């Protein structure tokens, strides 16, 4: 029993090490291939697949988050007579937390699943070996464009989710809950700083990187057969989901300490 647990722990450590090495190679290769003209069309194709086709789902996610928040938070605030502060609450939650995290989870499912399945199938049908056999680095050809596309587009998609969240929350507040729109926007503008929006967008950069690296790694290490590919997709989603939440926590702590250290200086300058 203890021996099995120990063996499993060692295996997990080895896998984590492999993922780390894969991630390092992917990141350095991507950085280098930014300068190569050949990479651009590949990145462009991936941006189309990863980014453009994800816009609708991400926007729908954002809109529902905003709308639901409005409905839920209204009762609490109205009880205290603060219903005009609803805008701050909704918009802060959307741009800082819920927009980025839920959009990233959505992408982990939509993009991560597709990446793992595609690369996993290429792996088991020896297409990745074929790339190697022709003297091309599969990480450069397959992983770098996908990683770059995810890094560039996840923040953009998060902005879409934020926008829709803000719009959705506002519409429910005005039309269904009958809140004065002027007060709503005033309080929002007062409460939401550029800093809050930037945090959400920067988070997106990290989430996108995590999704791409984990999904590509799972595809590259996929086991033989249809079952192997399915298993890799499941593993990739679970691992991406957990790392999104863990990164979210780590970034929240980091940004908070940065904020406390540097943001007050702004008032001295301004």
């Amino acid at each position, binding site marked *: 029993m203890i021996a099995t647990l120990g063996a499993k722990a060692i295996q997990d450590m080895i896998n984590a090490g492999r993922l780390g090495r894969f991630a390092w190679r992917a990141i350095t290769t991507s950085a280098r291939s930014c300068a190569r003209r050949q990479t651009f069309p590949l990145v462009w194709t991936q941006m189309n697949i990863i980014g453009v086709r994800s816009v609708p789902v991400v926007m729908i996610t954002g809109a529902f988050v905003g709308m639901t928040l409005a409905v839920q938070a209204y009762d609490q605030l109205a009880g205290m007579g603060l219903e005009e502060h609803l805008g701050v609450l909704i918009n802060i939650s959307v741009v800082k937390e819920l927009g980025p995290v839920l959009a990233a989870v959505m992408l982990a499912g939509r993009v991560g699943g597709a990446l793992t399945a*595609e690369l996993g199938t290429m792996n088991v049908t*020896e*297409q990745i*070996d074929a790339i190697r*056999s022709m*003297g091309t680095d599969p990480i450069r050809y397959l992983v770098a464009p996908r990683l770059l596309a995810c890094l560039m587009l996840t923040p953009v998609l998060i902005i879409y989710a934020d926008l829709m969240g803000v719009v959705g929350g506002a519409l429910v507040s005005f039309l269904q809950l009958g809140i004065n729109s002027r007060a709503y926007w005033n309080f929002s503008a007062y409460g939401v700083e550029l800093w809050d929006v930037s945090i959400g967008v920067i988070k997106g950069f990290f989430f996108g990187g995590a999704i791409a690296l984990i999904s590509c790694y799972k595809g590259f290490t996929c086991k033989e057969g249809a079952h192997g590919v399915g298993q890799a997709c499941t593993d990739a989603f679970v691992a991406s989901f957990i790392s999104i939440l863990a990164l979210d926590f780590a970034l929240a702590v980091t940004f908070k300490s940065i904020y406390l250290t540097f943001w007050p200086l702004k008032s001295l300058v301004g």
Partner: protein
Amino acid sequence: MDEWNDQADQGGQDGPVETVIEVRNLTKRFGSKLVLDNVSLAIEKGKTTVIIGPSGCGKTVLIKHFIALQRPSAGEVYFRDQRIDRLSEHDLDDIRTHFGYLFQEGALFDSLSVAENIMFPIRQHHRDVTRKAMEEVVKAKLAMVGLDGFQNYFPANLSGGQRKRVALARAVALNPEVILYDEPTTGLDPIRSDIINELVLKLEGDLNVTSVVVTHDMKSAYKVGDRIIMLHNGRIIADGDADQIRSHPHPTVQQFIHGQVSEDDLAVLRMSGVVAQSQFLPRDFEK
């Protein structure tokens, strides 16, 4: 035909034998399963070496070691005089451009069309080639395997034999000096198989290509092979030209080249009930 033909054309026919690939004491294990057992072999330049052997004896694993797609558990692999089994993937990229590798299952990129599959290695290694020049190469390579006109098909819409031939066209797209064929004629009709045999001979004769052909097809082995090697249980049990193999004393070799089943295998089949037990017919469940 095109400007890449030149690179393969160097080196004379005469002179002392020159080895292109050499493996020394190569052993390969997968877990506890021993697949290659202390194999040593040198492949001569400009010759066609055929590797035969029963299914699952390690032929594919052996030739994958020649371009370091598999790494040895023990032993050494050389390309010309350079040891390659310890090189990083990055350092191998250059060496691998000297090789063409035909995968047993083709391994075509299923998201690319036939033409794009063949252009892939050219695009990766010759950045300055124009689209038009590439299309001409694709046309020539496809004509070579009898598939001109299939440029815009996708691998999913080809038959198994057609896929294999496209894969062959892709393997020779860069006019490599060494071509490793993993069962080039399996799944092809007899006439098409013979055309592929002629193609192997022509590449060897005209361009002085070094070829390694893995096959089960004895007719093609005798036809293309300057030298035939038989692998059995991870070891080389026979090595010689076609006549030496035909008259080889080893019983396993004789059985293999004549396609005879050994008495032991037959005994299993004859054992009462083995075949019947392995077939579940509906009536078995009616009882």
